[in-house]
């Protein structure tokens, strides 16, 4: 068949397909175009014929262009984001954390180990903190948690708008740290390990120092609530990063690039959960931790309950056979 005959015979079909693509690309009535798969396959056949018969570049290229657009509409991954999100929060995320328990354990040991270790060391040998943190920052920390000043740098009478300021700040700062900890994993896990140790050491040093100089009450009652979510989130983002690094160090039977891709697909889900944790943490930190009206005892109790909640959630949620889906 001559090219011009072929073209004139199918021209109307192609034009109609182009219109259909326009509509799909604008996201209109996507489900209602029942004939799309059939038309798409037919177009693929036309392209194959055009190539096989040696038709001109213009025809082959424009058919190719149409097929590519069709391919992108036909094979796109459409997810019901709302339903998936709920199932993910209720079951998927804790399941994933348990599934990756080796990395979670490793990251947890690195982070909490260095935190507690450094905290004890600084408590016993107070001068150590000056090796890690510049003097001005230590002074700043001290004035922030000074029980006599009684304002926590965040006074009792502080306006709601100020909570809002801190909420924004915490979101930016903490999620930024979590993202860095995760991304660093691409450097064979070294970046994640570095950020886990670095943050663990810094937080531990501050905690140890403040407890040593007698500001323990203000400090611990402030941090215990949101710490449950914030610290575990940092450890989890580290776990996600270590997973990336491990995929590069020990790819198993896959090529390194492929192994990295598989690991990355899983770890990005962990990061979604981490973001959720950090949003909750920022909320608690801005609106509950900063309140000075409740007694420290209440704060410790609520804080302990929150830690328990996180532990129970990560350990037990989604274990039932009929997990919500």
């Amino acid at each position, binding site marked *: 068949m001559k090219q011009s005959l072929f073209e004139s015979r199918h021209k109307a079909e192609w034009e109609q397909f182009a219109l259909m693509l326009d509509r799909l690309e604008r996201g209109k009535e996507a489900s209602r175009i029942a004939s799309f798969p059939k038309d798409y396959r037919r177009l693929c056949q036309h392209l194959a014929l055009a190539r096989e018969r040696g038709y001109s570049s213009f025809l082959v290229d424009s058919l190719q262009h149409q097929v590519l657009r069709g391919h992108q509409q036909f094979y796109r991954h459409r997810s019901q984001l709302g339903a998936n999100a709920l199932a993910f929060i209720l079951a998927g995320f804790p399941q994933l954390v348990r599934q990756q328990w080796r990395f979670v354990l490793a990251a947890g040991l690195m982070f909490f180990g260095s935190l507690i270790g450094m905290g004890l060391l600084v408590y016993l040998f107070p001068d150590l903190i000056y090796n890690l943190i510049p003097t001005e920052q230590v002074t700043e920390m001290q004035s922030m948690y000074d029980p006599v000043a009684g304002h926590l740098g965040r006074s009792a009478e502080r306006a709601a708008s100020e909570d*809002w300021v801190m909420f924004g700040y915490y979101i930016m700062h903490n999620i930024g740290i979590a993202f860095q900890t995760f991304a660093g994993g691409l*450097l064979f896990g070294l970046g994640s390990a570095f950020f886990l140790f670095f943050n663990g050491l810094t937080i531990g040093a501050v905690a140890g120092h403040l407890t040593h100089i007698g500001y323990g009450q203000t400090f611990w009652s402030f941090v215990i609530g949101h710490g449950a979510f914030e610290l575990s989130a940092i450890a989890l983002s580290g776990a996600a990063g270590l997973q990336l690094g491990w995929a590069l160090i020990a790819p198993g039977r896959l090529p390194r690039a492929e192994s990295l891709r598989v690991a990355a697909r899983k770890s990005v889900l962990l990061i979604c959960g981490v973001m959720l944790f950090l949003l909750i943490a920022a909320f608690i930190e801005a609106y509950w931790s900063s309140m000075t009206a409740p007694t420290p005892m209440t704060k410790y109790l609520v804080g302990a309950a929150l830690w328990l909640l996180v532990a129970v959630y990560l350990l037990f949620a989604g274990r039932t056979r009929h997990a919500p889906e």
Partner: protein
Amino acid sequence: MLESTALPRKATLSPPLDTRYQVETPEGIDLPLRPAGLMIRALAFSIDLGLRGLILGLLFTVLAFLGKLGAGLGSILLFGVSWWYMVLFEVLNQGRSPGKQWMGLRVVQDDGTPVGWSASLLRNLLRFVDLLPFGYFLGAISCLQHPTFKRLGDLAAGTLVIYSEKPLTRPELPEAQPRRPVFALTLTEQRAILGFAERQGELSGARVQELATILAQPLQVPAPRAVTELNGIARSLLGPA
């Protein structure tokens, strides 16, 4: 002479010299994608960077009037713009951030399908590593050594930055009397002759003459008539309009 160099019908073509990346679809079609190199991606990124700076600058000046509330909103915005700008545009605007759109680029998955939330989030989170140790050094190295110009984030997320296809305009074939070629043409020869006729408008007269003269001998025509002869063959291949 010409027959011996041309490929037999149905022969697989030798790998092309250009950077095309073939995606085989489930329908058995090979779709060629054209990956974009470092330079144009850097340009697209600088446009995005400037745009983000502009957005933040404008918003901060507005928010400055709102006092404390503004400061809180400001840091959320800073977070949103610095980590989510690319992700939102890539997912909601068919793989194109404004900079990419301007430079005619788009992000797709390795298999040519549109980029999704998780892949886009991944490639943009891992940007942090591409930035190391300064000014996208690792990203640039990775991009330069990879056959389809992937930076580290693209490697992990399985994504690809390609040139978006522009709609083609139908080329005008030069008028000529349809003629039969003196020997049977192979598929590639047929494509080459049609290509010659379709692209004639873009070439200078002298170049057209020069190209056609190469074929004068196998076509058994005097050199000055080679162009009309080739156009005639192209006409006959195309069929009556």
